[in-house]
């Protein structure tokens, strides 16, 4: 007969992996948002400069968008998985 502890083991392991990634990506994401607020004024000035005709840094918002979405996207994905919300398997 299988012991109850053995039955729980795989589930426990999966949850801890998702939680670990949630914490890891959560910290990275938080760091990115802190940077965004610290450089709030610089970002605003950059857009104003682009609007006035200096196109040197026009692509920076796109790079910011891609980096944030990858890190924050991974975080939010693991976040719900860690909470046990998963898609229905057909």
């Amino acid at each position, binding site marked *: 007969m299988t012991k109850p502890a053995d039955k729980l083991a795989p589930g426990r392991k999966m949850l801890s992996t998702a939680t670990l990634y949630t914490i890891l990506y959560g910290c990275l994401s938080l760091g990115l948002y802190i940077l965004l607020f610290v450089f709030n004024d610089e970002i605003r000035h950059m*857009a104003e400069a682009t609007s006035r005709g200096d196109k040197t840094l026009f692509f920076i*918002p796109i790079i910011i968008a891609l980096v944030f*979405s*990858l890190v*924050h*996207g991974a975080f939010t994905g693991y976040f*719900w998985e860690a909470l046990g*919300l998963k*898609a*229905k398997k057909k």
Partner: protein
Amino acid sequence: MEAVNFLDLNATTVFLLFLVGFIGGMVSGFIGSGGAFVLTPAMMSLGAPGVIAVASNMAHKFPKALVASIKRNKYGQVDIKLGLIMGIFAEIGVFVGKEFMTNIRTNFGDTGTDLYVSVVFIVVLALVGGYVLRDAFRCKREGGDVEGAEHITPRLAKWVQSINIPGTMMSFHSIGGKRVSVLFIAPLGFATGLLAASIAVGGFIGVPAMMYVLGVPALMASATELVVAFVMGMGGSLFYAWEGFVDIRLAMIILAGSLFGVQIGAIGTTYVRDYTVKMIMGMIMIIVLFSRLFEMPVYLSDLDLISTISEGTSSLLSNISFGTLALALLSGAFAILAALLKGIKQHKKQQADAEYAASVAES
């Protein structure tokens, strides 16, 4: 050209943007149309000029579309080939639309873009929202309530699939491997892009076009639209960033909330039936329409197109507009969560019943 007018960020604005992003994301993951149709008006209600709202929305939308399409591709709901082809034509539409918007801003200022964005919203929401809602009720009546019910190809789509133009035919797995001419896809993609550059929402044309003109099932159409949204959103963001219209701070705060929401929305689609997606989509569209309608006299008055209305009336109309939008967001969020929870409950019950039946059969 007047200076770029970015919002000042304080704790309340950040919180509201995060919340609006979360609910908008949930709606977007669920119905596939970017969710910008609630986000653009919400940003405008918080004080961002129309052009900044549209540009910033596009910048938050394309990376989100990437995340959501990867997720829904895992559920087998995405037709990547169709998405990429429509996306390329949409890109051309985005370029034309962005040029148009820039010209309006140069000639009529920020209020000009506000009025333009609102008028396009009202017309499109009335047409598409009404059609989607009518279709959702029809589907429900005609047996759409049976889970896994066979997808019925609309009459128009049957005709489109029957036309053979040599040298332009391509097959798509989302319509059961049937062939459609690229010449039909090109205008659909172009219109999707044109609308995306005007109001940051392309899905209002893209999703119904795939469903009713090409014959793609609703769930697959909404998932494939995410690929289109990524392709055209990235191009559109570059076009707008070139003009300095992208407020990336605003876009990233909305993204913070919406990526939480988009995951729930995408998971939700796996638990509901096709007509539920349509019904919720239609309902939100109609409520947002009224939200924009209440702002119209304010813009018209600012541009001296009607006699000037008093400041009190103007602020009252803006508040009613914001309240209506909040109603759309909250009722949409409630409907999606309710559908998701109901689906999970039913799924668990079915699993329990199956396990019980198996154990009875064994004994």
